[in-house]
Every structure is written in C-alpha cells, then in structure tokens.
C-alpha cells in the first residue's frame, strides 16, 4: 500500500468471506469505472490479477538479467583466473577448459537469477524488516478485502454499495489511510 504523495486519502474497504465474492466484486467495480486501490486476501486467488486488471509481472525479466549477469561473471572469472591471471598446470590439462567451467557457470547463473528476482520482489512490494506496515484485520486469516479509492472522479457511493451488497459484503468500512 504505497502512497507516494503521503496525503490522507479516503478509502472504502469492503470485507468478504470468500474469494469468489472478492473476485466478482473486484471485476465489477473495475469494469464500472472505480479505481481499485488494492485487494487483500489470505492466499493468492486464481484469476484475481485479471479481475483487478493487473498486467503480468515483469520480474521474469529481472530474473533473466540476473541470470545473465551470473553467467557472465562465472565465465569471465573462471577463464581469467585459470588461463590468464595465474595459470597453473594441473595434470597437464589445458589452461582454458570451457567444458570444465560449465558446472560453476550454471550454479552462479541460478544463484544470481534467484537472488535478483527475490530482491526485486522485496523492492517493488516494499517488503523489508523495518516495515511498520500492518495488515487489515483478518486478511491473513479468512477475510477478503476490496479497497476502493475515492480520489478518482468516478467514485459514486451508491453504485459502490450496490456492488458490495450484490456480492454479500460482510461489512464496509470507510476511512483514511496513509
């Protein structure tokens, strides 16, 4: 829940008891022109990204870039140390033996790629050990919450309430969140 301009903003949060109602209400709210601030659930709901209109994450590209960096690091490191900086004669083998550099290259590719994708995930989602962020009540247990943004010109209370009751919202809370 990142808010860059740090202003108090009005939100309406609707609590649902199951993922189907959450998905339906989110899709309906989005299609009817509401601005969806975020959706909270205890587990990843299948099809929720589409309901929210999220594009597929581009973290895969970060993983690819990380893997490429790992591969280049490993290849350069091994060839430079084994064949150029201080080439050692080991068992009469050639100094530059690319085939024997495959295992370490593979391992470093995997290592860099995995760590990069996790670091990017933490960065984009604002996950860090000093975070004071709290969950909405029950979200990590059994509550499914749709949070609508009031800031858009499109927010109409009656229309929102209609959607909430159509999908059996347990309660609707209005408030200011930072």
């Amino acid at each position, binding site marked *: 829940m990142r808010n860059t301009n740090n202003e108090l903003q009005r939100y309406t949060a609707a609590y649902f008891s199951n993922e189907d109602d959450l998905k339906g209400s989110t899709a309906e709210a989005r299609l009817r022109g509401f601005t969806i601030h975020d959706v909270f659930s205890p587990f990843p709901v299948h099809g929720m990204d589409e309901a929210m209109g999220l594009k597929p994450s581009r973290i895969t590209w970060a*993983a690819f870039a990380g893997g490429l960096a790992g591969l280049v690091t490993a290849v350069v490191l091994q060839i430079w140390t084994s064949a150029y900086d201080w080439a050692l004669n080991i068992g009469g083998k050639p100094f530059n033996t690319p085939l024997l550099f495959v295992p370490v290259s593979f391992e470093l590719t995997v*290592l860099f790629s995995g760590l990069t994708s996790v670091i990017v995930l933490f960065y984009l*989602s604002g996950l860090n050990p000093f975070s004071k962020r709290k969950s909405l009540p029950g979200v990590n247990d059994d509550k499914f919450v749709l949070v609508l943004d009031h800031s858009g010109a499109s927010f109409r209370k009656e229309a929102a309430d209609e959607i909430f009751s159509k999908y059996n919202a347990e309660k609707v809370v209005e408030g200011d969140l930072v």
Partner: protein
Amino acid sequence: MDVPIEKLELSIDERRIRNEVGRITQHPAVSPLREPLVTGNKSYSDVTNDINVIHEQGAGLGWWIALAISSSLLLIGLIAGYLTVTVGIGTWGLNRTVGWAFDITNFVFWIGIGHAGTFISAILYLFNQKWRTSINRSAEAMTLIAVMCAGIFPIIHMGRPWLFYWFLPYPNSRGSLWVNFRSPLLWDFFAISTYFTISLVFWYIGLLPDIATARDRARTKFRRKLYTILSLGWNGSNRTWSRYETVYGILAALATPLVLSVHSIVSFDFATSLIPGWHSTIFPPYFVAGAVFSGFAMVMTLMILVRKVMNLEDYITLDHFEKMCKVTLLTGSIVGLAYITELWTGFYSGNPNEIFMIINRVLGPYAWAYWIMFTFNALVPQLFWFKRFRRSIPLIFVLSIFINIGMWFERFVIIMISLHRDYLPSSWTYYLPTTVEAGLLIGSFGLFFTAFLIFLRLFPIIAASEVKGVLKYAKH
C-alpha cells in the same frame, strides 16, 4: 409475466460488463473423482487455527523428551568434532588406502536427504501437484537442515576447517593463487552453497504470508517482535501476491535443474576419478534418483511422527503417503536397476580391475554392506506395488527407516568397497570407523532432529496460505 422493457433491454455496456464478470468468476469443470486434499470439512479460519496452534501453545512433554534425546546426540557430535579439530584427522579410522570413509558417506547421505524437499517444493509445484501443499514446508525445512548436516563433513575433513573460506575465489595475499575451477570438489562447493542459498530463499518466501498470520496472532512480546521483523510488512495485497507468485514460479523453475545439478556434481566427485566402481557415466542419474529416494523415505519417517504427535491427520492424509510411496517405488526401482547395471557394465568392460571390484563388492569382506544396501533399497520398496502396503502407516514407517539405512549403506558401499582393495594388494585393508567417527554420525542426526524440533516450535509447519488455496480443490 410482465417484465419492464428496460430490464430486458440492457445497454451494450451493461451486457459487456456482465459477460466479462461472468467469464472472470466462472469455475473450470472439476472431475467428481477428485478426492479432497484436506479432510474434515475445514473453513479458512480452521486452517489458520489448526496450524498456528501447534507453534503457539506450550511445548508438550513429548517435545521436551525428544529435544533432550536429540540434543544429547548433538552433544556427542560436538565432542567428536572437538576431538577431530583439536587432535586432528588421526582420530578417525582413515588411512592411506581408505582416504574417504565415514565423513564422505555421511556427506553424500545428508545431501541426498535434502533432495526430497526440493523435489516436493519445486518439481511438484511445476507439475501442478497440489497435494504437495501439506508437506512442502516441513520438507523444505528438512532440506535446509540436511544440507547443514552435510556441509559439516567435508569442512571438518579438511583438517583445518577454519580455513574453509579458501574455497572462495577471492583476491588473496598468496599471489592471488586462485582456486582450481577444474576440480569437482570445487564444483561441489559452488553447487552446495548455491543449493543452500536458493533453498533458504525459497523456504523463506513461502513462509512470508504465514509469518504474517503468526504476527497478527502473536500474544507474547518476543513473538510479536520476531514475526514483525521476519514478515517484512506483509499485508496480503494482491499486487504483492501477483509478484510473489511470479517469483515463486521463477524459484521453482531455477531450483528444479539446480537440485538435479547438485547430486550430479556430487557424483562427479567419484565419476571423474579413475577408481574402479566410481569411474562410471551412470553416476549422475543414479545419484539423483537415489537422493530423491532417500529423501522421500526421510520425509515419510518425519511426517508420520509429526502427523501423529501434532494431530495433523486431516492435512497429511493417507493419500499423501500413498503418493509418496509411489515416488519411493519408482526411484527405488531406478536405484535397483542401477545396481544391476553396475554389475553388468563391470563385467562387460573386460577390465580386470573393474571385474575384480564387482566380485569384491558382491562377495568380498564388505559383502554384508552390499547386501544390506541391495535388500533395503532395491527389494524392500517393491512392497509398495500393493495398495494395502502403501496405505499402512506402521508398515510405511518401518520401511522408510529401512530405506534410510539402506541408502546410507549405498554410499558406504560405493566409497569403501572401491577404496579398501586398491591396485596394490600390499596396501589392502579393512576399514572400521573409530568412536570419534561414529560420534560425528550420531551428532549429525542429533543436529538434524534438534533443528527440526526447534523449527516445529517456531514457525507454522504447514504452508497455511497454500493449503487455503487448495481447500476447495474437490468442491467446485
């Protein structure tokens, strides 16, 4: 029937919205043959409670007794480790003929145990095997602990374990004398440290949502503080979930070839040498299958205990064990086939040293170890062809322990039988472990169980968020 005309004639926009919402919310057809993955008709909050109560409530007497036993075993290991480091490798039964013995056997054994965790968490994830959700968390924890146990052995075998960082290719004051990137032992170092790091990250990422649940429920100050730090401010946002699922998929896709590479590289330690019985191209697949085999046996041993003691019968069901038994049967049969293939290729090679090694393996002084290995690994799992045995918890428990013993002996057989009678008959010997070596093996089991017991008390041992996702598996 007097329906107002305006209700019949929906605007095009309205119809589009309805179609779109209907498409997004519809459920795919589900086969009525599907069995529920979680029994007992649980609600989402039942799952939260059942799983979190385990680590929240005070430890029972059974846990303390188990901890007392396992930490005593760990203490034995610490004493043995102290003697090894202060006196030297001379406290072991190794000699010039048998240069690798108990330590490398234990190393390969523990690394193998770890493989089942990654198999369950990564490979079954990629194959969309939803039943993995009840067991993946503890299997991954088992992986991490097993890799730690494994890592100890090559490090103390170095003789000067405090210099183990010399394995890293860092610029040093020895001229920069670099590490030898052509050595499988160095590949091992990279493979295992990568494996440990990625497994740790994978496990932790999977834990994040559950730590947030534990944070929200925490009653003591210590737990609230611990989980607040570890949960990294997780709030269940779908934007985060979306990225999270992407990263989880990436890690699974990376861990899958990684886990295959780790035991392949461990097998290169042997396969790239010229020792009869080691110098063989079937080693990588044979080792990987054996690793998954032994790992699943250990998972079953642990899960049977955990399920019973923690009352998790609704989550870890008989179906789980039946599926694990099938994996065990498959991998056990691959291992059995490899044993026979080894005998055949030994004879067919026409190489007198290879032929001698085969005869020595089957009939020599260590034949007892070979036949323990063959019986426990190749023959015993064949019982799992029968459904009755796959669904009998007491039988699975006994067999899984047999398999663990058998797989330990597999590594003992590979290492010891090839080494103890080498090319020079005057140096032939019969290796027996010393008390210190036995103490280290016992200590590694102590470390394994102590760490696992602490894990049980600290974190949700079942991936609650994932279980919630499959709760309606057979219902829609």
